[in-house]
C-alpha cells in the first residue's frame, strides 16, 4: 500500500493546528511516549532501541583498532552512519544513502562531535600507532515520523552502554567483552521543531513532516548549551521564532534526557 500522494492536505492540517488539535489528537507541543531499551544486539559493543509512538529505531556501536590519521596521532575516530532501510517505510528506496539519510547521519554526528561527548583523545592506545575507531550505525525499523530526534537519542543511548572489546595481538578480540565502558562526557540530544505555517510542532507524524515549511534541529547538552543547529526547509524564519524554538527544544530535551540511564 504505497501512494505518497494519499495524504491529508496541508490546509486541513493547519485547520487542526489552529485549534491545537493534531492528526492523532495531540497538542502541538506534545511528544509521544518514548521508551529506551539497551543491549538489544549481542553482536555489537553497545546497542539500544528507542520507540516513539510507532517509530522504532536501533543503533549499534562497533569498535576497532586502527592507525590514527597522520595529522592527529593521538586521536581516535568517531563515525556516525544512518542507513534508512526501506524496511522501515514505503518511501525509502534501496541503493546508496539518500540525501535525507545523509542529513540524519550528519546532524546526529555533529551533535556528538561538537559537544565533545566522546573525547577522541581518550581513544588513543599508542600515539601514532594505534587508536580506537568507534562507529555508530543508526537503523530505523519503522518510520512513523521524528527520525531525526530518535536517531540522536538512540545513538547516545547505544554509546552510553558500550563496552570496549578485549584486545589480542594488537587487534580487537570480539569474542571477549571487558567491563570498561566508553566514557561519555555529555549527552547531546537533538530536538527538531517543525514549522507548518505559523505553528510550531515537535515529534511529527509522517504527514506533518511532509506538510512542514521549515524545521530547526537544536542539539543541546544537559547544562543547556547548544552544540549544533540545522535549519531545513525553504521557509524563512524570524529571529524571534528561532529563539522561541530554542526555548521549546531545551524544555523537550530535558524530558527526553530523563529517559536515559
Amino acid at each position: 500500500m504505497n501512494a505518497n500522494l494519499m495524504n491529508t492536505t496541508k490546509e486541513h492540517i493547519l485547520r487542526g493546528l489552529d485549534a491545537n488539535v493534531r492528526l492523532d489528537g495531540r497538542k502541538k507541543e506534545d511528544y509521544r511516549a518514548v521508551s529506551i531499551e539497551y543491549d538489544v544486539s549481542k553482536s555489537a559493543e553497545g546497542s539500544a532501541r528507542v520507540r516513539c509512538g510507532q517509530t522504532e529505531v536501533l543503533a549499534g556501536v562497533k569498535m576497532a583498532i586502527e592507525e590514527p590519521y597522520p595529522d592527529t596521532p593521538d586521536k581516535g575516530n568517531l563515525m556516525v552512519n544512518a542507513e534508512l532501510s526501506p524496511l522501515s517505510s514505503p518511501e525509502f528506496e534501496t541503493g546508496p544513502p539518500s540525501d535525507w539519510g545523509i542529513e540524519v547521519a550528519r546532524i546526529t554526528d555533529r551533535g556528538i562531535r561538537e559537544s565533545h561527548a566522546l573525547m577522541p583523545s581518550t581513544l588513543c592506545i599508542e600515539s601514532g600507532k594505534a587508536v580506537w575507531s568507534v562507529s555508530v550505525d543508526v537503523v530505523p525499523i519503522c518510520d512513523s515520523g521524528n527520525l531525526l530526534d530518535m536517531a540522536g537519542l538512540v545513538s547516545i543511548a547505544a554509546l552510553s552502554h558500550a563496552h570496549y572489546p578485549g584486545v589480542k595481538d594488537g587487534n580487537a578480540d570480539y569474542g571477549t567483552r571487558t567491563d570498561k565502558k566508553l566514557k561519555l562526557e555529555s549527552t547531546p540530544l537533538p530536538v527538531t521543531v517543525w514549522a507548518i505555517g505559523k505553528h510550531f510542532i515537535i515529534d511529527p507524524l509522517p504527514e506533518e513532516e511532509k506538510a512542514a515549511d521549515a524545521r530547526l534541529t537544536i542539539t543541546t547538552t544537559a547544562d543547556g548549551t547548544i552544540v549544533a543547529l540545522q535549519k531545513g526547509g525553504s521557509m524563512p524564519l524570524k529571529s524571534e521564532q528561532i529563539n522561541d524554538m530554542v526555548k521549546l527544544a531545551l524544555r523537550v530535551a530535558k524530558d527526553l534526557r530523563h529517559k536515559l540511564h
Partner: protein
Amino acid sequence: MIMGYDKRFDGRKQYEMRPMSAKVGVVPRADGSAMFQIGKTTAIAAVYGPRDLHPKFLQNPRGGLLRCHYSMMPFSGHGERVRPGQNRRAKEISRVMEASLRGVVDLNAFPNAVVDVFIELPQTDAGTRCAGICAASMALADAGLDMKDMVAAVSAGFVHDRIVADLTYEEEHYNEFAKGLKEEVHVADIPIACQVSNGEIVLLQMDGKVSAEFLAEALEVGKKACAEIGEVQRKALKERFTGGSL
C-alpha cells in the same frame, strides 16, 4: 581413537534447535511484517506491496514479481563492523530467498506489480538466511497474500562425524573452536528450506564436504526441524489475530 562431535558446544542434543521466538506485525507501517529469532540470530522482515514496479522493463504482464532484499545491520556480524550496502553475499542470499518463497506465493492477480520483502538482521549467530526466510514467510502471510503454504528454514550441518540441526557460528567454524583436534575435520553447512505442511524442499545449499548418506540424513533432519518451526510461525500468526485491546 578419534573422538567425534558427541557433545555440542552449547550442550544441545544432536537434533535439538536453539530456543525460538516469533512475533508478527512488528513494523506497523509495512503491509506485513514479522520477527523471527533462533538462538542469537534475529531477523526482521517487512513486506511492501503489491506496488508499482520500476523500471518498467522488469514488469511481468503475467503476474507480480517477488523481490527480496537481505541485509545484515553493520553491527550484527561476529567480528568487525560490516560495511552497509548490497555486497555479493547479500545479493546471492536475496536471490536464493526469492526462489524459496516464489513457489508458495501466488502473485498472478497482480500483473506488472512487485511485492518487496526487506530483511534486516540486528544480531547474528549463523543461520541468517534461514532465519530471514522464516521471518519473510510470516510477513508475507501477514500482508494477506495468497500462499499455498508457509516456508520454514534451518541450517542442518555436518560437524566432524555427525549431522546436527541448527548450526551456530562456532559449529560452522568447528576447526577453529574445537579442542584437541590433531588435524582439520570435515564440516558442512547445509541450509534447508521446506514447505511446512508437506516437507517439500524449496531451498538447498551446502558449504563444505559431506557424504551422500549423511546428506540424506541432513534432509530428514531439516524437514522435521522445519515442521517444528512451522508450529512457531503458525502460533505467532494466530496470536497477531486473536486477543486485542478492547
